[in-house]
């Protein structure tokens, strides 16, 4: 895959080919070094395995227990953390070789992430939190953003400071924000841990539709409260992976 360097000083977007696969090769978080033969590494289908995630494969459901390194996996693939051994590739490009500028470009155009802890800015309103991402990508109009907030039943909270929202409301704001960009892979780290079944289904439908439109794969993790992609009308193919 060709990855031209982006100028990290400007907002200029350079064209980069779509990422078709994410390949993990013998990856292990450093924190697990020395316990390769113990649980959870021993039982994992990810750590120390060779695993390829494909853009056209629909959805991946990564099932995990607490402390198995699920958020670490998301951070590694998003370029946020580098404390692992083994290698991760976007197509044939080793992540370790990506520059800061290339990572910025990838985060704007190719990989979308909803972090488990959401990382909203509490002093900004819900809408401002979304727009601060959207102004980088120019992916949605304000009307579209408001429509999505309405669909998730938090339209009336658009102008409230994010710090005053409940965790469940924050989760939905963060989901809308994550969708405000083009992507090849959408990584959702426990996206519905604080949502009831009804909202879970709404989120699942919105995400399935967004992924379909973007011709992208969804990677979602859960510790027992999975995103109910399989329960919606137009369900994508679902591949379950045990971490």
């Amino acid at each position, binding site marked *: 895959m060709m990855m031209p360097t982006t100028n990290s000083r*400007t907002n200029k977007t350079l064209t980069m080919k779509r990422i078709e696969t994410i390949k993990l090769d013998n990856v292990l978080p450093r924190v697990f070094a020395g316990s390769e033969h113990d649980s959870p590494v021993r039982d994992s289908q990810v750590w120390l395995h060779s695993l390829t995630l494909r853009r056209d494969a629909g959805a991946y459901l990564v099932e995990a227990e607490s402390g198995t390194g699920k958020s670490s996996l998301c951070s590694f693939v998003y370029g946020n953390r580098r404390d692992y051994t083994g290698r991760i590739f976007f197509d044939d490009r080793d992540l370790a070789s990506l520059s*800061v*500028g290339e990572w910025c470009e990838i985060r704007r155009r190719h990989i979308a992430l909803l972090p488990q802890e959401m990382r909203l800015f509490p*002093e*900004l309103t819900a809408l401002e939190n979304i*727009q601060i991402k959207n102004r980088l990508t120019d992916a949605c109009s304000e009307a579209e953003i408001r429509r999505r907030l309405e669909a998730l039943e938090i339209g009336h909270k658009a102008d409230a400071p994010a710090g005053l929202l409940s965790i469940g409301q924050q989760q939905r704001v963060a989901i809308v924000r994550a969708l405000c960009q083009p992507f090849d892979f959408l990584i959702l780290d426990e996206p519905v841990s604080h949502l009831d079944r009804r909202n879970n289904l709404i989120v699942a439908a919105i995400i399935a539709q967004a992924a379909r439109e973007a011709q992208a794969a969804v990677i979602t993790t859960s510790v027992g409260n999975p995103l109910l992609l399989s329960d919606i009308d137009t369900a994508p193919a679902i591949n379950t992976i045990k971490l």
Partner: protein
Amino acid sequence: MSNNVWKLLRRNISVSQIVGYAIANLVGLSIIIAAVQFYGDTSEAISGEDSFLSKDYVIISKKVSALNTMGAGGDTSFSPDEIKDIERQSWTRRVGQFTGADFSVMAAIEMGGRRMSTYLFFEAIPDQFLDINPRDWSFDPANPVIPVIMSKDYLTLYNFGFATTRNMPQLSEGLIGTVPMTMTLSGNGLHETLPARIVGFSSRLNTIAVPQSFLDWANERYAAPGDRRNPSRLIIEANTAGDPAIAKYIKRHGYEIAGDKADNSKAAYFLRVVTTIVLTVGIIISLLAFFILMLSIYLLLQKNKQKLHDLMLLGYSPGQVARPYYLLIGAVNAGVLVLSLTAALTAASWWSPRLADIGMASSGPWAAICAGVVIVALLTCANALAIRRIVHRNFYAS
């Protein structure tokens, strides 16, 4: 929309720290710029061709002792070896020799119907050591008129010592040039009278000077062969005014300095030392201010670390999240620059008429402005680099 980024990142900016920095740097920078301006204004006087603290010319001679008077002491002239040794010193730019007249001179002037005559002496130095540049400073044997430069002191002595007590007319410099004067030169069996004219007065030369070309010609003509002597006075042009090494050298060899040039050059040296001290103080204050700002920025970025990181997680580049801080630093530093330039140049406008009163022309504000701009640019670059480094360090969580 970008206001949102600013809204996030301006949190934790400590106004008091920034103001503290601005005031400290304002003081430091004003002192630096003022010192540079002052240095420029006064160096005209220190190194200028034609001013009272001029490039150092030292006239030296050997001490005359009672033994010399009795005719029993050593020679008071400089041997070629001694001259060579002076030329070798690091502070020497050029050495000129006083050539004496090896024949006798009788000068006569006609003034108010009265004729006055006196024995006189001549000396010559190479033209480039003269502090004045009179017209007609040349001698042509075919049409012989002797141009003479007198020490200003002699005119002062005449006007205020002699003329006032003897009811003689006081003379201005211009008038003297028009007084008809003759010189009778005798020696080597010849006795000739030539017209002469005073063409100028020197404050550097404590002598009666004629052109080197005239004296060479006259010595050839009137001096008995074998009567040529080594020079007994030397004029030295030094590289830096008031270099203490000169005084040490002269003391060690038992020479004497003529006139008050030594005092002037001490003043110049003192001026330089004081300016340098003031400049150093300014630089130290500015450096301390710079560290205050660095510390403040470091604390600020440290407090906003999480926000910087989260913005970059959204796809903001390090340059984009650093930009508000660049702008902040740029604006503060630009403000400090403008204010300190204003302060320093206001001070300069206070002292420059006072310096002009003693004949020192202002050197213009450009050197000082350049110094200020360069210093602020350097400080801003250093700040920006530090910000950039800290932001980049926060790009990866681990």
